[in-house]
């Protein structure tokens, strides 16, 4: 089955953990706007959860300050496999206006593997929704890989 088929009937409602690693709040309020009635991503069953152990997706905003690097890694490790990391915002993707700061360890892909980048400073809620759709596909392909690997291990 082609992966895009999964977007027609979602195989799973994504539960999302957000981690602000030093962002300006701009991306965070756009994430809140995405779950609010106008954009209403909760109609797909997607919601923000408070614990990394419940999450399928880690949404990272911000350019990762030195203090937050260790915390980001710890959150990432607590999320069960298969998991997808979505970076929301330019500063997490590339550093953007915060390039050449003495207190940054980022961008995020220097610290944890990133699957989906959502660009914009901050991205519009529509862009975040598109990023989540990409995350669904990514998660399904990872799940397939895990199932294949498990089958091979049994054989």
């Amino acid at each position, binding site marked *: 089955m082609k992966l895009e088929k999964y977007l027609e009937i979602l195989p799973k409602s994504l539960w999302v953990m957000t981690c602000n*690693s*030093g962002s300006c*709040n701009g991306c965070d309020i756009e994430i809140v706007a995405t779950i609010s*009635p106008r954009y209403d991503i909760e109609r797909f069953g997607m919601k923000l959860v*408070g614990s990394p152990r419940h999450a399928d997706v880690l949404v990272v905003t911000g350019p990762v300050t030195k203090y937050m690097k260790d915390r980001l890694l710890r959150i990432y490790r607590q999320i069960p496999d298969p998991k997808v990391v979505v970076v929301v915002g330019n500063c997490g993707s590339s550093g953007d*206006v915060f390039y050449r700061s003495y207190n*940054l360890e980022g961008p995020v892909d220097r610290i944890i593997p990133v699957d989906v980048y959502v660009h914009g400073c901050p991205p519009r809620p529509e862009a975040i929704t598109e990023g989540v759709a990409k995350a669904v596909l990514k998660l399904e392909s990872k799940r397939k890989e895990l199932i294949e690997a498990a089958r091979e291990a049994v054989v």
Partner: protein
Amino acid sequence: MSAKTYTVPIGPVHVGLKEPITAWLDLDGERIVGARVRPGAIHRGIERMGQERNPIQVIYLAERICGICSFSHITAFLRAVEDAAQIRVPARAQYIRSLVLELERVHSHILWAGVACYSIGFDSAFQLGMLMRERVMDVLETYTGNRVNYGVGTVGGVRWDITPEVDTVVRDMIRYYRNEFSAFYDIVTQDPVAKARMRNVGVLSYEDAIRHCALGPTARASGVRCDLRWSAPYEAYGDLDVKPVVPQDYVGEARGDVFDRFLVRVLEVYQSLDIMEKVLDGLPEGDIVFEKSVVKVLSLLKKAEGTGWGIIEAPRGDDSHVVHLTSGNENLTWWKVRAPTYANAVSWPIMFIGNDLADAPLIINSIDPCISCMERMLVTDAGSGNEQILTREQLLNMSREKTRRMMPA
């Protein structure tokens, strides 16, 4: 038996909606008997980065200090640069800046009111607030093209003019809020459970608010008459006759609790609507920027020498920027920013004391901090040495259960 049995660190990764920050709460059972706060997780070295950029480039950096009050920061920064370089801003630009500042205040206060309802488990009011907030976001997008970081201010004025179309959109929005926002206000203030959760919670007395330098709506809720738009008018506020909103003028007394902070912010939304209407009615004709060519502005700023100040009333309190320019150096020599949340966070320990642990999220939210994100707590029972991790979710559930207990069966 000692009075202090638990120490509960909130954070250091406290990664939910806003900036990470750490607080330690000393508990006696469920009561909070002491509290300490440690900020600093989100330090990005913005002031240092400003020393490597020229003032026009720093505008976009200043905008990203905070995504919610982005225009307040650049207005304070631009006023500091204009003060240092002796640049006069045209009257029309000053009016437009005041308009955008008020639009920003409306969206910030509605967002706060929604989040406050969310943290007491009043989710329908949160969704209603977020739905209403989209209207002002639409107006900001119509005028500036952006939803969050508008990029509309520049040295010596603003970049976009208020066209008749924008004027119509803003007036429509004012009418919409006058009709609809009262519903939200009534739902929350008439609701007995919401009132019970917010009344006499997180009290900051008049004396404590002054002693600990609380600012903005946090101080006004304690009855302190302070508002820079009134006491030291900037931009167009001198013509607009703004009075500080204090609860004693509306409900007779100021208790300085979370309910008063809610009331002040809601009333300020109405005040902002009035201000916006006055701005649109009195919008003078003329230029919107003192010099259109950015190259000429930059060469002028390169020659400038001196220190400039810019202090404005942001949605959360006084926001001050101080800038020093040296002749012959294109970049800022130094730049200092003082945002209101830092001053307000000092009063947290006082607000916490004597309240339940379940009220902690509400009290943290009540000063409208730029605080965020997943909230993780480590409860250490000093007696048995047991440790327990409390997630933001559990904390939120605690808060919501308290609401449920209060509801009549």
